[in-house]
């Protein structure tokens, strides 16, 4: 990678940092129930929704009621989407004549989109009607993102409230996230993307007669509206099978920059929102710093690894030549080159987004390991919208607990004593990730139906399986695409890993929110461990890396690390 690549990476990080306080401040106002610039237009719509649905926005919920609303909404979401995918052949807006999804694939897809994962065992333009894309997937792209944000907001209230019984109203938080944050951003982004070349129509697929006289069928559809929200809401499910590598999904370097910014925009902004809502911006900045540090290291490793040519290809006579693109170009697009492909891969897995603009399966061993590690850490390097920060809060509690043990004091965070109950719940959430990734991967490696999907035996095959269940458990949705996942066994087990990684983290987090909200606030004293300085940032990063690293290091050394040692050895 040359200097122009480095400049683009730095530009990206600068823009992301600059936008963080702007969007963060806005979201703080939205979730505190305050008026925003958009209130005059959206306010009546919002109140209308509550009226139609019989929801009293002033009635706050205990954490258990909050969780019950969330689970009911998600359960119905899965059922409706499943029905839509099974029945699409009989429903309108199906110009390409798509048939019903198989039961296991429809289950996998419904679970995957309802949980903000967007794992795709299918290829959009070859499997879905326009109605399924719009009224099915696009809807869940919005509300699954809003669900994640709602859980985070409930947790923030746990810290900011004293001796309180309630953590907010799920319906209000979810609707406000959708109407005030996701929808306006999506409308603007979708139109921008159309300007750059992304299709937005309901036309039948076009049959072209190519210059050499062959026939080429070109998929069409309402792509831009879905692509906008899949980037913004950390969903990641492509309208087209090959996601944002597709020239219709991401046509230009400019569309690429905007889509990349949106991978992290809301998650990054929420660190600021957090600081604002707990009344101490420095706390949010410290979390941003810890996440940013891990992001930059990841980008550095992957950009370096992808910029190097594959020695086996050089040996057979293929390399960069006088200004042609060099490095590892298998599975990458010319308009993005190495830098933008590497940057995207790290950002999309940091974000639990999972959209791709290059094929991670074809990345070099180390370049592909970074995305995998991002997911194994529990998607806390910014992470999914809401989900990333509440996941990080789990590590924050563990970090202050460890710090407390070291000096022999009861740990505190933001004036709340962190006691055995919170730590048990946090450990439960942290262990869920380990369990989902390692147990399901291990199963897939001993069951013939799990092994059947592997494209390449050896260390790379292990990486394919590890990646799949890391992606599922982390609710990321990207894949080492060589692994054949569209079969009953992988479809079902991946869906189970997704459900585990979503709800067995959300429930303990909401329980923590409830427990914290009920506590009194202890005033900071000379003995209080400050949680806004570099020392805390270091401790937090250390906790994330050690818990993640020690758990997964053995598996990684048999997968990507072993493959790295084999690279260049011509078989």
């Amino acid at each position: 990678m040359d200097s122009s690549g480095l400049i683009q990476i730095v530009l990206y990080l600068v823009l992301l940092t600059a936008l963080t306080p702007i969007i963060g401040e806005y979201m703080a106002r939205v979730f505190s129930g305050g008026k925003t610039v958009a209130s005059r237009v959206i306010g009546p719509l919002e109140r209308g929704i509550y009226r139609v649905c019989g929801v009293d926005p002033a009635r706050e919920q205990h954490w258990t009621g909050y969780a019950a609303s969330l689970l009911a909404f998600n359960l119905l979401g899965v059922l409706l989407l499943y029905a839509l995918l099974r029945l699409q052949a009989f429903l309108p807006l199906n110009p390409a004549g798509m048939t019903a999804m198989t039961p296991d694939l429809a289950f996998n897809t419904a679970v995957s989109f309802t949980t903000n994962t967007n794992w795709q065992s299918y290829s959009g333009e070859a499997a879905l009607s326009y109605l399924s894309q719009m009224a099915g997937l696009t809807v869940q792209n919005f509300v699954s993102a809003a669900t994640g944000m709602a859980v985070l907001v409930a947790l923030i209230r746990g810290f900011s409230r004293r001796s309180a019984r309630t953590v907010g109203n799920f319906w209000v938080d979810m609707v406000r996230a959708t109407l005030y944050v996701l929808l306006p951003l999506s409308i603007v982004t979708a139109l921008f993307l159309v300007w750059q070349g992304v299709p937005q129509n309901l036309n039948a697929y076009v049959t072209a007669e190519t210059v050499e006289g062959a026939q080429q069928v070109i998929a069409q559809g309402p792509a831009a509206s879905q692509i906008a929200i899949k980037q913004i809401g950390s969903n990641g499910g492509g309208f087209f099978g090959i996601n944002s590598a597709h020239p219709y999904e991401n046509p230009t370097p400019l569309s690429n920059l905007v889509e990349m910014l949106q991978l992290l925009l809301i998650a990054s902004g929420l660190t600021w929102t957090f600081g604002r809502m707990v009344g101490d911006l420095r706390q949010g900045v410290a979390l941003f710093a810890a996440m940013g540090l891990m992001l930059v290291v990841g980008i550095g490793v992957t950009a370096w690894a992808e910029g190097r040519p594959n020695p086996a290809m050089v040996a057979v006579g293929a390399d960069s030549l006088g200004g042609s693109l060099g490095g590892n170009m298998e599975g990458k697009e010319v308009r993005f080159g190495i830098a933008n492909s590497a940057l995207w891969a790290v950002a999309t897995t940091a974000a639990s987004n999972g959209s791709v603009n290059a094929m991670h399966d074809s990345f070099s061993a180390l370049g592909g390991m970074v995305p995998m590690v991002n997911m194994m850490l529990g998607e806390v390097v910014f992470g999914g919208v809401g989900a990333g920060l509440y996941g990080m809060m789990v590590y924050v509690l563990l970090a202050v607990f460890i710090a407390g043990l070291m000096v022999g004091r009861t740990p505190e965070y933001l004036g709340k004593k962190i006691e055995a109950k919170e730590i048990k719940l946090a450990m439960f959430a942290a262990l869920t990730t380990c369990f989902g990734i390692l147990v399901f991967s291990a199963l897939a490696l001993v069951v013939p139906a799990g092994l059947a999907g592997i494209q390449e035996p050896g260390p790379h095959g292990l990486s394919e399986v590890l990646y799949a269940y890391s992606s599922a458990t982390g609710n990321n949705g990207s894949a080492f695409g060589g692994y054949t996942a569209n079969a009953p066994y992988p479809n079902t087990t991946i869906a189970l890993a997704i459900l585990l990684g979503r709800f067995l983290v959300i429930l303990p987090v909401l329980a923590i929110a409830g427990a914290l909200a009920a506590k009194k606030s202890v005033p900071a004293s000379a003995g209080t461990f400050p949680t806004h300085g570099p020392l805390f940032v270091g401790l937090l990063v250390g906790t994330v890396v050690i818990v993640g690293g020690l758990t997964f290091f053995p598996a990684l050394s048999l997968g990507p690390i072993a493959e790295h040692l084999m690279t260049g050895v011509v078989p």
Partner: protein
Amino acid sequence: MLKELKPALMMLLVLTAITGILYPLAVTGAAQALFPAQANGSLIVRDGKVAGSALIAQNFVGPGWFQPRPSAVDYNAASSGASNLGPTSGVLIETVAKRVEALRAANPGADPAAPVPVELVTASGSGLDPHLSPAAALWQVPRVAAAREIPESDLRALVARHTEGRTLGLLGEPRVNVLLLNLELDQRTSGTN
């Protein structure tokens, strides 16, 4: 949780109407009004027939055409895809070696001592990558010039004219759109491929 089901169902239906029907239809309407060419797929119409999309690669086999990057899905624009082969895959290296050999045989004018540009022998991410780097397009000039019996310098000038720089001088990579390049080539020297 049962008493939660009614508001949950109503919420799901109302939000489906807003985000799943109204939102995409409103964006479609606005897009069709503001950017109709892009919204309908940036199609290229020649002699009243659609010849392709300016954003989507199509296959070119003849020696008189500039050839795009290899596609794992044979340029199927109704089913995009990649090889997804890993860096140590024997299949990948074998495929690349075969492509190198084929390109060497078809391009005797290229310097045999220099490597073949790696992007010409690796499959793109989408299978529909419409671009080449300028260097990879220039590498094909001797072959195209010989097949069409036109001076190489003309072709170099044509490639230079079709070269897009980095956006705003910063973003992405310099590139040449192969289909647009070939269409102009066709117009200039029609019928001689």
